[in-house]
């Protein structure tokens, strides 16, 4: 037996191992992504495959996204009113609600909801197929599981999330309208008029949509990769599902920061 290593060496070597591991996983994820894009032809030549995944990822997430959007919009309006009324600027409520939603809350909250509702399901499904050798069975049947199982799920997610984010924002604005106009009694013309005057379709709306598309790629990739990379055991799949939600949330928030810096710095030109 050698003498016990000093604690600092142990910590450093753990850190080193963890770093190398993370880099290796990143490399594997990149190769996985490239392979998936290459194998996407099958998915696109058979839209039925993608349609099924849009149903799983998009349609089944509709209720939670619509409800959350409505409530977020109503809360925004109530809270916004508290602040705006002090400056006598309650007509700007429409602007406040719309800008918060289309720029930030729509893409981000819809992305987080999507990751926990649809992303985790994707990971669990693929992980379970791996555990029960369904993916291996496909491979032996000369069917590429990346083309047949992974790519349709990925593209289904990529298509679903931007639509869900748009629906989230729309319902949120409607919620803001309900509270602001119907409940509090702000002038309906001022609500929509100020909103339209302040929200630019390219600078605000389009940038929000771009954000949601970026999140869609990130979350879908994380979800299918974690599923495909899961350890083929029950614990492995549940750990992978958790990782999907955590990693997606971090990725969404970090990407949101980066995108916001690039999109909304220094105003529109």
């Amino acid at each position, binding site marked *: 037996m050698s003498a016990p290593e000093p604690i600092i060496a142990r910590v450093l070597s753990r850190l080193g191992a963890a770093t190398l591991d993370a880099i290796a996983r990143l490399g594997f994820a990149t190769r996985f992504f490239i392979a998936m894009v290459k194998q996407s032809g099958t998915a696109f030549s058979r839209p039925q495959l993608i349609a099924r995944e849009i149903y799983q990822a998009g349609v089944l997430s509709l209720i939670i996204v619509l409800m959350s959007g409505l409530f977020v919009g109503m809360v925004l309006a109530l809270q916004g009113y508290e602040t705006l009324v002090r400056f006598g600027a309650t007509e700007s409520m429409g602007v406040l609600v719309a800008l918060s939603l289309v720029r930030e809350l729509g893409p981000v909250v819809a992305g987080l909801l999507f990751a926990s509702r649809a992303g985790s399901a994707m990971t669990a*499904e693929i992980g*379970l*197929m791996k555990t*029960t*050798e*369904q993916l*291996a*069975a496909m*491979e*032996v*049947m*000369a*069917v590429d599981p990346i083309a*047949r199982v992974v790519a349709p799920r990925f593209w289904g997610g990529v298509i679903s999330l931007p639509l869900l984010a748009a629906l989230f924002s729309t319902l949120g604005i409607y919620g803001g309208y309900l509270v602001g106009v119907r409940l509090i009694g702000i002038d309906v013309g001022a609500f929509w008029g100020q909103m339209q005057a302040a929200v630019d379709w390219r600078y605000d709306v389009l940038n929000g949509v771009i954000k949601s598309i970026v999140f869609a790629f990130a979350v879908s990739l994380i979800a299918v990769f974690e599923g495909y990379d899961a350890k083929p055991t029950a614990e492995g799949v549940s750990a992978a599902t958790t990782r999907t939600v955590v990693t997606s949330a971090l990725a969404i928030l970090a990407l949101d920061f980066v995108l916001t810096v690039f999109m909304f710095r220094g105003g529109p030109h």
Partner: protein
Amino acid sequence: MVMSPSTAVDGPSSSASIAPAASGDALVTLRDVSFGYTRERQILSGVNLTVPRGKLVAVMGGSGCGKTTILRLLCGQIRASSGEVLVAGESVAAMNREQMYAHRRRLGMLFQFGALFTDMTVFDNIAFPMHEHTDLPEDIIRDLVLMKLNAVGLRGTAELKPSELSGGMARRVALARTIALDPQIVLYDEPFAGLDPISLSVVGQLIRRLNDALGMTSILVTHDIAESLKIVDYIYFISEGRVVAQGDVAGIRASTDPFVRQFVDGEPDGPVHFHYPAPALAEAFS
């Protein structure tokens, strides 16, 4: 290892052990195959094995002896670190992607627990390989699927989900899917695992019948000696990555080889030890 394959089994089986290799009609041949995920731990070392066309050959051994690895080598999911895996004279390791997919199309594999697609009905499971690999019209696919299901006696389950089937039925459905495209070679990975005695003999008889009726060549990886002895033509015993004994059914039954005897009679100790290698007790407690 003291025993070489040719001397492993004494008596009548030693002549039989030459027969399949000498017949010259070998569909599957493993020549001196070694495989290991790491250099230190070899899973297979120098395996020689021959499967003649039209025969049903069992590869037996304890859990974790490398049986399943042989199947994965044949499917091309992994490549041998040395030696040759030949199927109909072609080396599996030398195939490119196209050839590999063509190779897999003449192959059927039944996985340990069936590996049915859980999100599809029984019908869609069996139609899956047909949809993926053929352009057959839908009504012909329907007839084919029902024929395959009928062959395993489960035509009535077509609209059920795999989760609604018993273990034995799921295994038979998986068998129907495996033979959906009439493969030349069928590989069975522990087809008897976790089945009750009735399902077990049903599956066993199906394997034999399908092999003969459809003119397939089958490789059966299992540790169920009793059922195997009823249905197979020839048996290889694998232990610690090597072929330690082989012979036809009569030869195996009559064998006096200690490993074969321990395996056939199911004795807890023998050439395969009860104790995992460890220092002597006295040493451990001192």
